[in-house]
């Protein structure tokens, strides 16, 4: 109970701290993905005229893009912040009885806020357009859980490794650019020649993005993908937590 209070306090501050003194405040959480959507929709939808299968309007392309970006941005939040989170909260970690295992939860918590805001926005837009699938509301939470589990695995692993390997922090932004481009997020998979499709089958991010789209845009639950990704998520989370616990006592020496 007290732990939960502590986590809540930490999360609240974490979000507040980032947007303290800005004009938009917490709305930056929304402004950022919206801006990204605007740029991608313009460049890929209007300028490059990318289209999905038979559909021809650029509005549905934007919606499709937004679904993919929502999950990507949430993961990006975790990937960028996790390697530095222990160093960021060094003072608290070394000078108070704060359980270190709470810290990697912070970027995951922020990503959760981010994702819920953008997915909420997306569903609202779909309803306004009359393209809403009522099942999405029930099918989405399991997918969110899957994404959170994957994020936790990444957060715990990267947080503790980031203490020893300072380069990780610098590596994340370029890595994200690569991930964005090797996954069908800003372009549809069909736009890619057939021989590269095998790669997408092995790319968990591609699978996750496609699962999100299936649920949010088509109201279909991709059971097979979900099962495989869930196994992957649980396995890697187990490993990451183990790694975190084993390495944390050492991390104190070099923090």
């Amino acid at each position: 109970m007290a732990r939960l209070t502590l986590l809540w306090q930490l999360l609240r501050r974490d979000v507040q701290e980032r947007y303290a003194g800005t004009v938009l405040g917490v709305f930056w959480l929304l402004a950022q993905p919206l801006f990204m959507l605007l740029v991608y929709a313009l460049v890929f939808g209007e300028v490059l005229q990318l289209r999905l299968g038979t559909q021809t309007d650029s509005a549905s392309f934007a919606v499709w893009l937004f679904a993919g970006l929502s999950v990507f941005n949430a993961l990006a939040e975790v990937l960028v912040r996790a390697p530095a989170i222990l160093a960021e909260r060094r003072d608290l970690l070394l000078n108070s009885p704060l359980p270190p295992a709470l810290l990697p939860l912070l970027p995951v918590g922020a990503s959760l806020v981010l994702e819920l805001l953008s997915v909420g926005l997306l569903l609202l837009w779909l309803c306004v357009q009359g393209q809403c699938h009522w099942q999405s509301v029930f099918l989405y939470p399991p997918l969110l859980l899957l994404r959170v589990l994957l994020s936790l695995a990444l957060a715990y692993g990267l947080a503790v490794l980031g203490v020893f390997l300072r380069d990780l922090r610098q590596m994340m932004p370029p890595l994200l650019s690569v991930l964005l481009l090797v996954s069908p997020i800003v372009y549809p998979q069909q736009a890619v020649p057939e021989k590269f499709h095998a790669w997408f089958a092995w790319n968990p991010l591609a699978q996750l993005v496609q699962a999100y789209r299936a649920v949010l845009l088509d109201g279909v639950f991709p059971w097979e993908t979900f099962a495989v990704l869930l196994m992957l998520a649980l396995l890697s989370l187990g490993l990451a937590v183990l790694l975190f616990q084993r390495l944390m006592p050492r991390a104190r020496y070099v923090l």
Partner: protein
Amino acid sequence: MSVEIAIRLEQAGVAYRQYQHPRDALLEWLLRKPRHTHFHALQDVSLDVRAGDSLGIVGDNGAGKSTLLKMLAGNLPPSTGLCEVRGRRSALLELGSGLQSEFSGEENARMGLALRGLAHGEIAQKLPQVLAFAELGEFIHQPVKNYSSGMVVRLVFSISAVIEPDVLIVDEALSVGDQYFQKKSLDRMREILSGGATLVFCSHNLYQVREMCRQAVWLERGRVRMLGDAQVVVDAYQDDVRGRNREEGKSAGASCPSPDKGRLGGVSLLSVTLNNNIFQTHAPFSVTLHASCGDRPLSDIHAGIVIRRNDNIQCYGISTLHDGVAMQPLGEGVIATKFTIDRLPLLSGEYCLEVWLIDSSGVHVYDSRERCCHFRVQQAGQQQGIGMVWLPHRWETVEVAEDALAA
């Protein structure tokens, strides 16, 4: 055991590993090959503190005091041995650590309470008390980065002490606060103690340690040099510090008149004897002097005695010349005198004597012994006062003027 132990340390130690580069710590783990050098901040500390008891920590800078406090506060796990603390602990450690400077005092208080294990409801209940105790006024809504160090102490102490901890740990940071707040916080500490909680207190203000604590531990280079009754440990530490100051004083060339070596007229000190070498304050004290008078007349030989504390302070000095007393002839060229203090007013410390044989002008020195007859004084407790000597005193009722009452 009938009494509950609140703090138990068994051969507890803290070693920091120092690495050339952070990645070495990871490589070491992967390759199982040591790549670090050890720094022992604390070694082999064993002590028990019963619930409701108080432990003071004294020692020089870098002796391991802060490390010990951090370990007791639960911020740092011991790398060897055992460290057990029962109950809710609350710590005021190094200044401002654990505070987030961008946030207001109130936000930090909320966080501090959460870190000390309070749940949401309790925080809402305790927060007004914390803010009231800190007395920071409007500043409580300002970011902590705008605080003075005294204000930071007010805030952190309030957070630590307003919740009722089972174990309260207070670092010397407290001394940064102003006199008003220091008194307020010491009162609060005493209140917590009398409520049955355990106190661990570390301060360079040895008087406060003696006042607040029943037990004390003296740390030196990460090890326990002495553990026991606070009065005894603090006295021993103080003696040691004074002793070291004296060494420094010596090398700086403390000036004392050197006797005219030539033993003019064959006058020399034969013996200086003290009736004891450990005294209690108010115990009888006497020094017996024997000297050979050579060819000088008795009236031209006088003895002087100086009591010096080991930090080189002259406590008192007097001579037979100034008191107008003659030395006593014992025959065969030997003269003697006995200097007696019925109730020695000196307070605890280490002292020594200086003995001089001077002529009747008081200028010429026949012979002298410096820093001889080392002795130690112990006092029964703080009730005999603090400082160097017990001074005769009394406390009187204040006369209240009639017209003052009427007004």
